[in-house]
């Protein structure tokens, strides 16, 4: 289905499907809900105002993910430059943890994962976030990041290697 980003019907269709994905991408790059919301808002406003034709919802999704990822990375770069921003973002409210039987991953593990993802170098972080949180395959990631599929494969592997070394496996609990 062809998508015209400035047509309300198309916009809503894409928004409904893609918002959770881009929110996840923004969040797992910045780990701040308010910043992520701003980023997603900015991405969708650009999407709406640019009036772009996409061949499919997926094409629109890849465009939005790319824009969101870039915005989020920029925020993080600015954050590292401005010490004030660091403190502000560190104070981000913790993500509410699911309780009871629903909880697949406990809150401590989530925190550990978060800390590990935050420490990843930008190139590896982008690939890992798109792989683990946007549920994209290597080909889709390669299209979004404009890198080769084999490069994606290598980066996924390197990112996981670093993640593993940072996460104490003893503390990873999967129920």
């Amino acid at each position, binding site marked *: 289905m062809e998508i015209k980003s*400035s047509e*309300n019907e198309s*916009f809503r269709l894409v*928004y409904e499907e893609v*918002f*959770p994905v881009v*929110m*996840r991408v923004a*969040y*797992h790059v910045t780990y701040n*809900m308010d910043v*992520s*919301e701003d980023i*997603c*808002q900015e991405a*969708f*406003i650009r999407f*709406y*105002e640019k009036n772009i034709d996409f061949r499919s919802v997926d094409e629109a999704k890849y465009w939005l993910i790319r824009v969101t990822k870039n915005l989020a990375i920029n925020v993080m770069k600015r954050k590292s430059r401005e010490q004030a921003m660091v403190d502000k973002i560190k104070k981000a409210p913790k*993500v*509410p943890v*699911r309780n009871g039987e629903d909880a*697949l*991953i406990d809150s401590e*593990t*989530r925190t550990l*994962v*978060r800390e590990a*993802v935050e420490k990843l170098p930008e190139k590896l972080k982008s690939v*890992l976030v798109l*792989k*683990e*949180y946007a549920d994209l*395959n*290597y080909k889709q990631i390669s299209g979004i990041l404009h890198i080769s599929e084999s490069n994606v*494969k*290598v980066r*996924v*592997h390197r990112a*996981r*290697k670093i*993640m*593993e070394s940072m*996460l104490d*496996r003893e503390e*990873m609990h*999967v129920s």
Partner: protein
Amino acid sequence: MCLDDQILNTYLDGELTEPWKTQVEEHLNYCVACKTRFGQLSTLHAVVSGSRLEEQEIAPHKEKVLQFIEKNYMEKKNKIGFLHKDFRIKTPMLLSAAAAFVFVLVGALLIGPSTQAEPNALIPRVVPATGGAVVQVRATEGLAASQVLENYPLEEILKYLDSRGYEVDLRVKGIQPMGGEPIEPVEPALEPVEPTVTE
């Protein structure tokens, strides 16, 4: 020869193509070391991917951002479309436009005489047979009105109004008369309309 982590990760992500995929599966069937390692990588993937922002955490933000865009972009775009088919202005907008027009008109009539300094431009001309039109002028409010009226003696104003066919109801509010006698309203009482001037 055993499998390295990169191949196992690629296999784990379902990205390994044939014939390597089948070879890896066969190897994992008998190699305990590789199977164990594959188990570890699977757990790592499950833990990392499972630590994701959940749908219910996203939902309120999804709603909020959509409302913002609808209000600030979608609706505005629809209104701006003068050349588009669905041109419409909401009733409150029309009312406020009318109110602004009346305000400007009245303002112009009240300020006008101060520059012309002619009595016959003091009070707006009465359109005959409209019936029930009431013009209130208070010296205490509306700087323009009080300035204009101050330029004329009361007698002249009343004479003027009389000549124009106004019925004048003169009241003094908030001031106690010095004598015992109440102030009689001046009533030229002419037809056809009865605007009221209060000083």
